[in-house]
């Protein structure tokens, strides 16, 4: 009896107690006619048990069986309480660890954001502040590409100025000599772009292939790192007011352009296929990719020459148009071309800032 009494004391000292777990125990008490089966506080239960012990001390030996049963129940309570203690302790430890993890992640996030800001300023996104391409792109830029992006920004600004001048000159009906100067300037400006692109292709051919320096609508219409030459001609054609003797030349140009484009596209398809085969060779073999990656790298090397060829076709198309058209036609053609790309650029910005439907 004494031992059970001390047990009660220690049970009472516990602050953690789950009344609900004791329900099953209390159900037993019902048979003995005890007054309360609802989950109750520690104190109440202890009081009852305490009463019980005091009661039993005055009872006859016949009640000792009841006493033992009570002991067992008390043991169960104590065991439950101990388990609860453990569980609570573990929970506290887990919470602590989680909070520490959150704190360090927050620090890391701040650092990454700072880095991103820094490299963004160095890389200087052009092509619309809102529509500046996928985030994280700046992390992969090398210096060759970074300078290309800067130069391209300047190129677009100069292009916009030239377009303005052309428009004014055509509307003002300036004489051919004045127009010729503007046309030559426009042609030289496109040559500059191709020169810049050739340099950038050596720095990072994948960057060029993905058209990352262009706005999103232009990227959508991308063909091997630039505009599609046949599309260009189709845009220009209705605005040229061709003379009869020019028609066959221009239509031949359109046809040969299309054929050249198709040929290069098929070459690119073969390049893609050979790359796929090289990368996929020996999958699931369990071995390292290292020996095969050299083969895949070899397959990628012709990519630069394909961009070169595509740009070469674009240059040649422009040159041929320049040769075929009169000064006035060439001026209108350059203006139409410039306006077309301007529209694509503003479309991209408008699209990026359009009101979105709620998710």
């Amino acid at each position: 009896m004494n031992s059970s009494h001390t047990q009660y004391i220690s049970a009472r000292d516990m602050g953690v107690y789950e009344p609900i777990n004791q329900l099953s125990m209390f159900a037993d008490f019902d048979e003995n006619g005890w007054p309360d089966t609802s989950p109750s506080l520690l104190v109440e239960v202890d009081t009852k048990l305490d009463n019980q012990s005091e009661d039993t001390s005055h009872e006859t030996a016949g009640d000792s069986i009841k006493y033992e049963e009570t002991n067992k129940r008390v043991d169960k309570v104590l065991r439950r309480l101990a388990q609860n203690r453990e569980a609570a302790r573990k929970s506290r430890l887990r919470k602590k660890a989680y909070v520490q993890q959150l704190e360090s992640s927050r620090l890391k996030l701040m650092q990454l954001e700072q880095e991103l800001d820094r490299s963004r300023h160095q890389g200087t996104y052009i092509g619309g502040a809102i529509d500046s391409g996928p985030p994280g792109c700046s992390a992969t830029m090398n210096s060759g590409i970074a300078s290309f992006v800067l130069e391209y920004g300047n190129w677009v600004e100069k292009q916009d100025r030239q377009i303005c001048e052309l428009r004014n000159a055509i509307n003002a009906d300036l004489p051919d000599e004045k127009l010729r100067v503007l046309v030559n300037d426009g042609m030289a400006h496109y040559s500059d772009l191709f020169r810049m692109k050739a340099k950038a292709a050596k720095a990072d051919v994948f960057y060029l292939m993905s058209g990352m320096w262009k706005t999103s609508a232009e990227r959508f219409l991308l063909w091997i790192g630039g505009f599609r030459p046949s599309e260009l001609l189709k845009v220009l054609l209705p605005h040229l007011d061709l003379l009869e003797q020019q028609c066959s030349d221009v239509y031949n140009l359109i046809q040969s352009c299309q054929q050249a484009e198709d040929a290069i596209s098929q070459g690119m398809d073969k390049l893609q296929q050979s790359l796929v085969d090289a990368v996929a060779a020996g999958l699931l073999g369990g071995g390292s990719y290292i020996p095969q990656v050299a083969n895949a790298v070899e397959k990628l090397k012709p990519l630069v020459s394909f961009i070169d060829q595509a740009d070469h076709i674009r240059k040649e198309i422009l040159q041929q148009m320049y040769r075929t058209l009169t000064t006035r036609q060439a001026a209108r053609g350059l203006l139409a071309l410039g306006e077309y790309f301007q529209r694509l650029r503003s479309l991209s910005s408008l699209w990026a800032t359009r009101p979105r439907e709620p998710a």
Partner: protein
Amino acid sequence: MMYYRAPVAAASANSDSSCSITWGWHYDTHVPTSRQISSEPLERIVKLVSRSAVVIFSRSSCCMCHAVKRLFCGMGVNATVYELDQDPFLGKEIERALLNLLGDYSKTSVPVVFIGGKLVGAMDRVMGSHINGTLVPLLKEAGALWL
């Protein structure tokens, strides 16, 4: 395969004056390879390009070569293609000779196109001449295109 008819075919545009024109015509096409006296690649090139109106030197794995083949195919031109990686005897040497013919600015030896026995050039030249309208007349002159 289209057989070239005009006799002066072998007057190639190359600057190498040591290439003698008449060699190409002294060899019978039925002479088996092992008995050919001259193995000089340049002479072999001359011989090959004089046989057909349009000759493309290529490598079977080269994607740019594939593009040039598709270009002529798309135009309805039947070109004779020599895959140099499949020529165990002279392949490499012909490639080197072609590099010399093309000059320093060319990075790769293939593809190289000859029309009417004359050197047109690498992909650059072929594309350029097609867009500026000089390729088609060349093909017609060589009998590779009728329209």
